[in-house]
């Protein structure tokens, strides 16, 4: 057993971490959320230059041919820094094409997604908490009509991978109208889209490929949640060491100490769970659906609670707009609800466990 990151993985995460320290400073994140008009294009370009979009895509498409665990480690870091970039939709679009696309579709789209010359996204939700393949009502034939909801970066995207009753389908820019939603999490914008007799290209009908795409989405959200939740623990802890009341750092009071210990206790073991889920996706596919559902449910619940606890630990300043706390709280709300709430994933996990 060697349930550890390889030297290369440690190196890649170190590189990415220093990039984010430099290019994703909290002030820049605040700028993006104050402008509220999209993502941080400069940061995204730097991530593209580093090879993030192609991490899991094959070398012949320009990718690095790495695994889900590698991509999940990236997601963790982006979560830790609350990076306002269109990572989630873009990598899921590429992965879906990789899993279900015909050779022609792969050759046409993957290199462009890897190089960042186009932006991809995924349209999974249909409202009323319908996110999953067996709930999709949108029908694709020669043409595509209907609506999808809560699509990340739909206005900026060039290519959209749409979940339909016929499997995954590709729609190019210009074939949908997008309505901007007032997203709670301003680091990842959401739009509702409508298709009217849109020109569409169906991918191969590979049900297990669609399932694997959903599992990948769950794992990436879980990893983002772990990164964000760990940051909440760190921010609250650092503050408790600095802030003084009654003539001493508030972190020396046992009440707060125990709150912070409980936060760490509900967050830190989650690392093993999301690693495991990513590892099953790569190495134990029969267990991936269950593990991914469990990771999404557990980590996203833990993140939202940790973000709430963090606000409490900061006191009044934590409730202000200029503070970082609400960025994480809202990102936690996104991770929690997007793709379905924890309870739904727990019930899925129970079914997959054969209970």
């Amino acid at each position, binding site marked *: 057993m*060697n*349930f*550890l990151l390889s030297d290369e993985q440690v190196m890649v995460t170190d590189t990415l971490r220093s990039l984010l320290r430099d290019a994703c400073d909290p002030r820049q994140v605040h700028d993006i959320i104050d402008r509220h008009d999209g993502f941080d294009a400069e940061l995204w370009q730097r991530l593209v230059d580093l090879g993030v979009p192609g991490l899991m895509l094959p070398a012949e498409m320009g990718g690095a041919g790495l695994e889900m665990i590698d991509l999940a480690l990236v997601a963790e870091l982006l979560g830790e820094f609350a990076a306002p970039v269109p990572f989630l939709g873009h990598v899921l679009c590429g992965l879906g094409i990789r899993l279900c696309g015909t050779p022609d579709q792969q050759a046409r789209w993957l290199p462009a997604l890897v190089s960042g010359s186009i932006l991809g996204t995924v349209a999974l939700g249909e409202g009323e908490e319908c996110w999953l393949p067996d709930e999709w009502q949108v029908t694709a034939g020669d043409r595509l009509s209907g609506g999808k909801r809560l699509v990340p970066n739909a206005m900026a995207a060039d290519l959209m991978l749409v979940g339909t009753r016929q499997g995954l389908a590709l729609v190019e820019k210009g074939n949908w109208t997008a309505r901007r939603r007032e997203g709670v999490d301003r680091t990842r914008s959401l739009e509702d889209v409508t298709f009217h007799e849109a020109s569409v290209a169906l991918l191969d009908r590979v049900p297990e490929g669609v399932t694997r795409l959903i599992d990948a989405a769950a794992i990436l959200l879980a990893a983002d949640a772990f990164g964000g939740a760990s940051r909440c623990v760190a921010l609250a802890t650092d503050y408790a*060491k600095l802030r003084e009341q009654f003539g001493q750092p508030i972190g020396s009071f046992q009440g707060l*100490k*125990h709150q912070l210990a409980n936060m*760490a206790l509900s967050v830190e073991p989650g690392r093993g*769970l999301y*690693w495991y889920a990513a590892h099953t996706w790569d190495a134990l596919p029969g267990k991936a659906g269950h593990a991914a559902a*469990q990771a999404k449910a557990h980590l996203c619940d833990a993140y939202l609670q940790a973000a709430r606890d963090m606000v409490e630990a900061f006191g009044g300043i934590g409730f202000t707009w200029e503070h970082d706390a609400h960025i994480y709280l809202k990102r936690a709300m996104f991770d929690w609800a997007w793709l379905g709430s924890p309870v739904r994933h727990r019930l899925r996990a129970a079914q997959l466990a054969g209970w």
Partner: protein
Amino acid sequence: MELGFGAAYEAFRAEVRTFIAAHWPPADGNVKDPAAIRAFRDACTAQGYYARAVPRRYGGSEQPADIVKAEIIREEIRRADAPAEVRDGGITLLIPTLLEWGTEAQRQRFISPTLKGDYRWAQGFSEPGAGSDLASLRTRAVLVDDHWVINGQKIWSSYAHRAHYMFALVRTEPEAPKHEGISYLLIDLRQPGVTIRPLRQMTDQSEFCEVFFDDARTPADWIVGGRGQGWRITRTTLKHERGSLSGLSWTDSMLRGLIRLAREMRRDGQPAIDHPTIRAELAAIEAQSMALTYSTYRAISMTVHGQEPGLFSTMAKIASTDLAQRIAKLARDLLADDLLVMDGPQRKWIDRFMISLSMSIAGGTSNIQRNIIAERGLGLPREQRAGEA
């Protein structure tokens, strides 16, 4: 990243499995026969599976430290439902202490019979006035000629009524500062100056005891380490207790039991496990258990590779405790009417519901564990405690 154990370890696993199959269950099928259990454990020690950290000259199997092999042995023993290695206080706490601090005579005298189960040990640490603040203990020992004369009281001493000996912390240097006046003594419990009173627990069973010393005696050279070194010695000993991985297999078997219970019990005319609220909570518990398991695997892997597991290592104990308590709570919900009676079919779950409470107390209370996470894990300022510099 590799979650399996790798080819070399899988070969070792096969070897362990073959060995167990050849030795257990006993030929006559009587898995309760004490002699057969003992023979099996002796065979495991001879084979190098048990007493791995103990040198051969003291009756151990003297294997190189390998926590992965140790884990494989535990897993295979559990799978075969064969007698596990005895893990009482004498073996997990005293023997490592003697190996680190004891004299050659003490090791020769005590280790081998303890391994064989001929000497059973009670721990004598806590006192009525010294719980979390253990160093304030007041049981005293005075050297009179060639014997220590001991007076005072210990409490929460598990199975002392069945034990032969006690390893105890006592105050031998009353003038020294709090932590420096304590010594680690070995005491024969079967002597006139010792009175042992089992405490009746809320489960109506008796495990822990009060032990009274009234001019009890122990030889001068039954002190482990030097005079006043007891506190230092115990810090290393308690590390053995908190660092053990055995909690994982216990919570794992509790979880499997809980799933069986959810299938057996009924709710709204259907198996309780089909009820969405029960199902979701059961899944949430499973996820918490998975998080603990794979974070432990990560910590093991890091230790094997000489890395420091960091924050997680400060929370292993309380994480198991919290999980056990969450399991107990869902069991309570499942029991419903059966929670009212001790003579019902689910008596063992009523016991477990109560026993889960003791986990947050024994071996360092959960509140003390939270202090450890906060101070050693998160680096928050240490609390000023009376009697500390």
